């Protein structure tokens, strides 16, 4: 058994248990806040990107007066229905810069006896031309959907092969979409347009509640553009050529969310910086105290041959150990509360939400740990330096 500087440092940390814990916890608060904020930001960013990638549409054409509702539906999956004439599809296809256009019809399941799932969005798509859902059906299903078959979003809590009833009709679940992070897609039920139209027609006789949507109506037209044009350009062409519609640019929806979140982030960031400065000051003061009351011991160590560097290292080792422990605690608590509050966060931010991917998560953790480490190091730097520079005899006399 030898005796090392690290051994001495660890004894010192255990000596004043409560004080060590106080230091670690103040670092934990800073690291935890930062970790939570960046994790939320990263996840939101990621799920927005993934969601729109899955949506696959550059533009979404909706009735002009429903633009806000359409955005809300797209981003937060808020239940809305709106309709416009199916004729518009042909006109949109003729607009300059439009490569493909596919209609979708949004229906809402009523909250009483008619349907198994209340308040679910039913999305009718055209299997011939749809480029958001249809490709998925081809890849994973390898056959067209039958007249009594539906697809479900990943968060609809039913199993493949199960049966769901909507407006008096039974449907078999043929498959589900991958998780996208967008509630608009994850909580919806998908069926071919023909199936949806038949359900509407027959709702008069089969369901307690009748759907009143006429044959040619659709809710939205999803547009893929010719890469020679920008989405903004094509949106202007569409709005110019066709009265009464609005072309929502998917990217812009995301950037507006980014802007909102940026405001939120900034205020949390200000709080984090204040917390950090406070933690720095507090730990700095505590370490000055620690160094002061241990000056005599430092003098004794110097007298028996400890170099300045060793004394400095001893104090820095204590500080960085505490702050890394604090950082780990903070990240654990931050991660735990994010997990516990994930639904609250999702609804209050009003955006789709997922955990960041593993490698990004790791980067966030490493960065937060590094900041925690830095906190201790910066706070203890001056006390450690001063202590190590003191003349041994003066140091030894100090405690007398």
């Amino acid at each position, binding site marked *: *058994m030898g*005796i090392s500087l690290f051994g001495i440092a660890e004894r010192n940390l255990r*000596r004043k248990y409560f004080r060590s814990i106080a230091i670690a916890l103040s670092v934990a608060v800073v690291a935890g806040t930062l970790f939570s904020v960046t994790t939320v930001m990263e996840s939101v960013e990621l799920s927005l990107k993934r969601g729109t990638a899955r949506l696959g549409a550059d533009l979404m054409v909706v009735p002009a007066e429903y633009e806000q509702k359409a955005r809300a539906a797209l981003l937060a999956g808020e239940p809305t229905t709106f309709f416009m004439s199916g004729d518009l599809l042909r006109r949109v296809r003729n607009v300059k810069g439009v490569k493909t256009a596919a209609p979708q019809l949004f229906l809402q399941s009523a909250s009483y006896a008619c349907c198994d799932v209340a308040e679910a969005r039913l999305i009718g798509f055209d299997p011939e031309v749809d480029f958001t859902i249809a490709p998925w059906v081809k890849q994973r299903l390898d056959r067209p959907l039958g007249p009594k078959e539906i697809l479900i979003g990943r968060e609809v809590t039913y199993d493949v092969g199960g049966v769901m009833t909507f407006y008096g009709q039974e449907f078999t679940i043929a498959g589900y979409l991958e998780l996208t992070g967008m509630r608009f897609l994850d909580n919806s039920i998908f069926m071919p347009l023909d199936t949806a139209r038949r359900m509407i027609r027959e709702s008069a006789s089969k369901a307690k509640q009748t759907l009143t949507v006429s044959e040619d109506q659709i809710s939205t037209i999803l547009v893929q553009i010719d890469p020679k044009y920008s989405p903004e350009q094509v949106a202007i062409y569409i709005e110019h050529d066709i009265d009464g519609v609005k072309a929502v640019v998917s990217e812009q929806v995301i950037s507006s969310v980014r802007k909102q979140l940026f405001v939120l982030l900034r205020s949390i960031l200000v709080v984090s910086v204040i917390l950090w400065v406070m933690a720095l000051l507090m730990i700095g003061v505590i370490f000055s105290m620690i160094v002061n009351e241990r000056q005599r011991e430092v003098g004794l*160590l*110097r007298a*028996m*041959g*400890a170099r*300045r560097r060793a004394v400095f290292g001893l104090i820095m080792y204590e500080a960085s150990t505490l702050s890394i422990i604090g950082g780990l605690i903070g990240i654990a608590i931050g991660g735990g509360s994010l997990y516990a509050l994930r639904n609250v966060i999702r609804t209050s931010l009003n955006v789709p939400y997922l955990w960041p991917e593993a490698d990004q998560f790791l980067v966030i953790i490493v960065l937060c740990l590094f900041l925690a480490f830095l906190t201790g190091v910066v706070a203890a730097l001056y006390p450690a330096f001063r202590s190590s520079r003191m003349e041994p005899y003066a140091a030894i006399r100090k405690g007398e």
Partner: protein
Amino acid sequence: MIEVKNISKHYQAGGQAVHAVNDANLHIERGEFLSIVGHSGSGKTTLLSLMGGLTRPDSGTVVIDGVDLWSISDDELSGFRNRKINFIYQFASLIPTLTALENVMLPSAFGKWTGDTEQRARELLGLVGLSDKLNSYPSELSGGQQRRVAIARAFINEPEVVLADEPTGDLDEDTEAEIFNLFRRFNEEKKLTFVLVTHSRELAAKTRRQVRMTHGVLTEN
């Protein structure tokens, strides 16, 4: 072995200059056993810490084994202390978080040492009569026991010079005699140079050479 030349150290206390050590000269041969006597506040501890390189003199030089302590770097001086010099302090000087055994071994943390330090620490603690207290913390030891741990620690690096400041201050007569014999044994067997500050005339009388401090002035007795 030790060459103290025209060394002075003063302190500023309450607007007044205190000449703790005033132009002291001292030559000590290798293996000498020397005692320093003097009234309280006459500058004995200050002289000892000047000789051990713990505090920088206002003027004068200290040369040990051909090395001028205040002309080498702080790192070199630290290493020099670690290898060649050891101290026994007038006051409690153990690290409270370490056991008796660990306290004795502590100097080995600061240098490249060969040999079994722990074995040697056990032997030394045995020599000062503390074989049964190896794993006790300072707070669990009496004042005299703590002092004996500090004494054991002073020999852990097999130093060439030991500077002892009233090392037997709080020991009973019998223990004092035992410890003094131990000092003499190390002094004789290992050719160790020993400087002993003491208030006890009896103890001083047992050493071959005595010097006296009076208001910072050093005189041969």
